[in-house]
């Protein structure tokens, strides 16, 4: 798996992509907060905001098929979770809460999808640094992002090996055991890898402090 899988539409050129990263971030958060603070009675406003977000997706060249695929996974989940409300809270009141939650969460979900697709991960790290997130966390995030793909590949190899040994035949509890052992094996391997990486980092002068090497235009210079 490559980073193209995650940042699929992050490198497309469009009006939305050209916005500075912190503006994109503030726009998205502002939209989510606005959506949250609108009362249920004003549902047409919610619908309007959802249309605005859809327009934003169109501007950012995000294909509708992708949006609907993500929504088709998200909406049934939310529906399943919120369907209990009319039964547990009294029908009228619970129905109102359910509709409010569905509208708000759909709006927020679409907005976050927009942000995800408009802002590549390196831009996100730079933005986080701008919002005074501690240096260690940024370093951890970039390290994590670097190794997610490595570990996914490793996991894929182990899955293939497992399938080659006719996994899937046993009882459910046996499948669970094998799957959990897969995670355990991955953990052992990745911790060993972390030790090796640490030695390599030490050999290159790592002392626990992160040296910045980003593409932000230095305003002081």
């Amino acid at each position: 798996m490559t980073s193209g899988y995650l940042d699929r539409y992050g490198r497309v050129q469009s009006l939305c992509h050209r916005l500075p990263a912190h503006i994109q971030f503030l726009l998205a958060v502002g939209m989510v907060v606005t959506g949250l603070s609108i009362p249920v009675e004003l549902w047409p406003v919610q619908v309007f905001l959802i249309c605005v977000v859809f327009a934003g997706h169109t501007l950012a060249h995000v294909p509708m098929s992708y949006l609907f695929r993500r929504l088709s996974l998200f909406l049934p989940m939310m529906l399943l979770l919120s369907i209990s409300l009319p039964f547990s809270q009294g029908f009228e009141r619970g129905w109102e809460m359910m509709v409010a939650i569905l509208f708000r969460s759909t709006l927020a979900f679409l907005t976050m999808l927009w942000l995800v697709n408009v802002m590549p991960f390196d831009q996100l790290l730079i933005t986080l640094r701008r919002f005074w997130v501690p240096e260690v966390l940024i370093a951890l995030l970039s390290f994590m992002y670097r190794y997610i793909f490595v570990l996914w590949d490793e996991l894929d190899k182990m899955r293939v090996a497992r399938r080659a040994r006719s996994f899937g035949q046993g009882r459910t509890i046996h499948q669970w055991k094998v799957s959990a052992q897969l995670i355990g094996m991955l953990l052992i391997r990745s911790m060993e890898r972390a030790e090796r990486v640490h030695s390599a980092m030490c050999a290159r002068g790592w002392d626990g402090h992160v040296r910045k090497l980003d593409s932000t235009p230095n305003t002081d210079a």
Partner: protein
Amino acid sequence: MHIADGVLSPEVCIAAGALSLSVVGYSLHKMKSSLGDRTVPLTGMMSALIFAGQMVNFPLLGAPISGHLIGGVLAASVLGPWAGCVAITLVLVVQCVLFADGGILTLGANVLNMAVIGSIGGYGILSITRRLLGRGRFGTIVGAVFASWLTVMAAAALFCLEFRMSWLNSDFQFQNIFTWMVTVHSAIGIGEALITGFAVSFILSQRPDLLHSSEKPAGAVGTFSRALAAGVVVALAVAAFLAPFASDFPDGLEAVAERAGFNELAAEPKILVLDDYKVPIAMHGWQKVSVSLAGIGGTGVVLIIGLLLGRTIKPQAANAEVRE
């Protein structure tokens, strides 16, 4: 499992965010002092691992859905409570900003429910169980299984609290939602407990040195903070079990909210109390039975799982000792 935006009110999001911000900040501080320059590779790798590990699906018999690992206790049992908490927090952040999985405003609540409770609280339970059952394989596995199940339950209970605080001005029926959440999560917790138990027992048989032992840096981790974290989780769990019995009284939260003087509640406190009493007695009885059954059944199943896992491992341990 992730709370989406729109479920909780902004006030609750801010409160939960502030709480988890301070805990994660403290964890960062503790983590740096205990791991030193190994912080970044070890914790970053652990986050990536939990992230990748969640891609492993666990088939559910006869259901079209499948479950996956949450990983708080697993991370804590290898890295210790503080680094484990930071690792899970990073997983949640990346899931939020890369997959739009879980809301951005509810990130604080998600971190509180899964990273803080899951990792710090889970570690507290794990170390208490190990103290009671011994530090060998048996105690560790039973502890991991028990901690995973309890943290999932505690997270569900905490979510109910957050949800209830978000809808203060409605005639909210706390018990119903609580029954629903606790019943569902006692099943989810068994899955998490099984996965964590199998994974920990596998690690114990291959590389037991990888597991975090609280004994080496004796004073460094601090008995006090461990006891505190464990106390919080145990209290939540006890609340989860005792709440159905205590809830014949008008719900404690309402009393607190009333005293705190929330406008809407203060305006019409009597209606709220009355509404609670309107619930038919039969319903009350049923709920109590179902919640307690879920609790007792879950605890029993989890204990049996733990004991069985411990039993299958034990002979090997004995052999190893003989060989030495």
